[in-house]
């Protein structure tokens, strides 16, 4: 082991056997290539789970709204009502089904601020709660029950500034769904981090393969070698040892905590040294790297729910909110969300959003720019790997695959999806 690996090693044994529900055998990836499974998953998982659709800061005042296209699931409007409550409804007119809220391109999402929504087709109007307020030439209709007319409601709840919707008829409350361990997230000052960068990538691969690609730290010396060391043999020696991570599986959600480098000490202006074609010099100059800024903003004391595994050089906690949201809280005072929206068995959209405390000066602003650019350069390297995995799996030339101990989140995640589908199908069979 290298000096770095020795410093981070904990001597913990294997993680997977600690979890009774996990075996250690080979796995099938049929759940990522079968069109039938994809349809079943959409019904059992996406139509019945709480789905994150945006931050509360997107709705700063009553009357503000945004729309979301949840591909294959729903087209919805999320708005803040006059009483301040955030609610959601299907973006569908009660008259003839026209999409009510859109600008220029019906397929695209939109946002804005208004008192009422007006359908572009025949001028029906709706309040910020989705109820009809005006029917054009109402007297020409036959027995309209105007009070019952509306854009159909969608269950919508907020937690820690994250807005979720649920397309089921009668879902469990969001806080019940999240459970005690995730409710602790409420202690984090997400609301201080309003400097927002967002990115979205179409990926020709199953959404679960994208989740897999960021659930283990086995791949960095290969996929991200050039960032670590051009010599792969050296890169392999510069990653933290597997036993330095921390895992917690609280079904259906899960967590991993990751080590990371400490920030550089403060330095006087003019001491970055002579310019060099060396990325480490760029990191020193701008005082930031993939793991965050060297000048960490003061956001108050670290809430106790973070780094429960007491990692010595803690980098971040990655909370996986089932099914498709990862909230990463970084030691250096910022957070990132990943969201995965399936479109077909072999296609999804991957959203990355980064949130920082607004920068006080150019140095802080540039540090954030470098963190953002580093994150996307790394993510770009992961994306094509996902597409290559989809290609390989879909041949079915191999049908059994092998997960190591540090890939336990992958083992667990696919099992949770499969179990959710099986439970739903069992309920369906019983009811019919």
């Amino acid at each position, binding site marked *: 082991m290298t000096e770095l690996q020795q410093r981070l090693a904990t001597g913990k044994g294997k993680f997977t056997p600690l979890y009774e529900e996990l075996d250690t055998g080979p796995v099938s990836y049929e759940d990522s290539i079968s069109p039938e499974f994809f349809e079943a998953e959409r019904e059992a998982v996406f139509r019945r789970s709480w789905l994150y659709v945006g931050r509360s800061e997107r709705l700063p005042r009553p009357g503000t709204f945004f729309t979301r296209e949840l591909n294959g699931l729903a087209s919805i409007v999320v708005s803040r009502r006059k009483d301040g409550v955030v609610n959601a409804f299907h973006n569908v007119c009660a008259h003839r089904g026209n999409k009510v809220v859109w600008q220029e391109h019906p397929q695209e999402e939109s946002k804005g601020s208004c008192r009422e929504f007006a359908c572009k087709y025949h001028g029906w109007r709706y309040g910020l709660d989705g109820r009809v307020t005006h029917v054009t030439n109402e007297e020409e209709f036959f027995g309209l029950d105007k009070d019952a007319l509306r854009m159909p409601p969608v269950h919508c709840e907020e937690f820690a500034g994250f807005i979720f919707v649920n397309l089921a008829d009668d879902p469990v409350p969001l806080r019940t769904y999240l459970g005690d361990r995730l409710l602790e997230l409420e202690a984090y000052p997400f609301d201080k981090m309003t*400097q*927002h*960068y*967002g*990115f*979205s*990538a179409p*990926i020709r691969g199953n959404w679960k393969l994208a989740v897999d690609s960021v659930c283990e730290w086995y791949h960095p010396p290969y996929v991200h070698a*050039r*960032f670590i060391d051009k010599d792969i043999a050296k890169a392999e020696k510069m990653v933290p040892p597997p036993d330095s991570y921390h895992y917690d599986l609280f079904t259906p959600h899960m967590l991993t905590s990751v080590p990371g480098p400490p920030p550089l000490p403060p330095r006087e*202006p*003019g001491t*970055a040294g*002579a*310019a*060099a*074609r*060396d*990325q480490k010099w*760029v990191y020193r*100059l*701008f005082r930031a790297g993939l793991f965050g800024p060297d000048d960490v903003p003061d956001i108050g004391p670290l809430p106790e729910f973070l780094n429960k595994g007491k990692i010595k050089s803690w980098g971040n906690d990655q909370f996986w909110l089932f099914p498709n949201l990862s909230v990463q809280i970084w030691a250096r005072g910022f957070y990132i969300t990943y969201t995965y929206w399936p479109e077909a068995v072999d296609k999804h959209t991957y*959203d*990355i*959003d980064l949130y920082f405390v607004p*920068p*006080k*000066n*150019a*140095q802080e*602003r*540039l540090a954030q*720019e*470098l963190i*953002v*650019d*580093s994150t*996307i*350069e790394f*993510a*770009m*390297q992961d*994306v*094509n790997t996902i*597409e290559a995995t989809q290609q390989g799996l879909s041949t079915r030339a191999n049908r059994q695959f092998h997960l190591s101990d540090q890939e336990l989140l992958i083992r667990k995640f696919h099992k949770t999806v499969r179990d959710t589908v099986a439970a739903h199908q069992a309920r369906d069979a019983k009811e019919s």
Partner: protein
Amino acid sequence: MSAVTSIGTASTLPARFADLEPWVADWARPTRQERYDMRLSKKYGELEEFYDAIAPRAEEAIEYLNGRDLDDLADDDARLLQLLYSMILVSYAVNVFMQPRIPDSGAAFFNTTAEPAV
């Protein structure tokens, strides 16, 4: 050539950074997407030239800009800041990948859905 400011001078950067003027037209761009497109449109040697021109002035530029209000930047200050954003984007190509595009990234791309105004 680069644009001329409203007050009619040839430099569109703060006076002490006027020597960086040749880089303004291509690299002082307000959005990340434009900066990334520019990186992909250049030959590797052109990226090296840009990096080698900006990097030695970067620390001085950061110090200069630190004295300015980010929410009320003059146009010439904003352009200098944008040159530094471009330097960061180009640094990966020059120092990490030795080519404009990330190796093996194929057709992969990220659309920008949100970014700060400045």
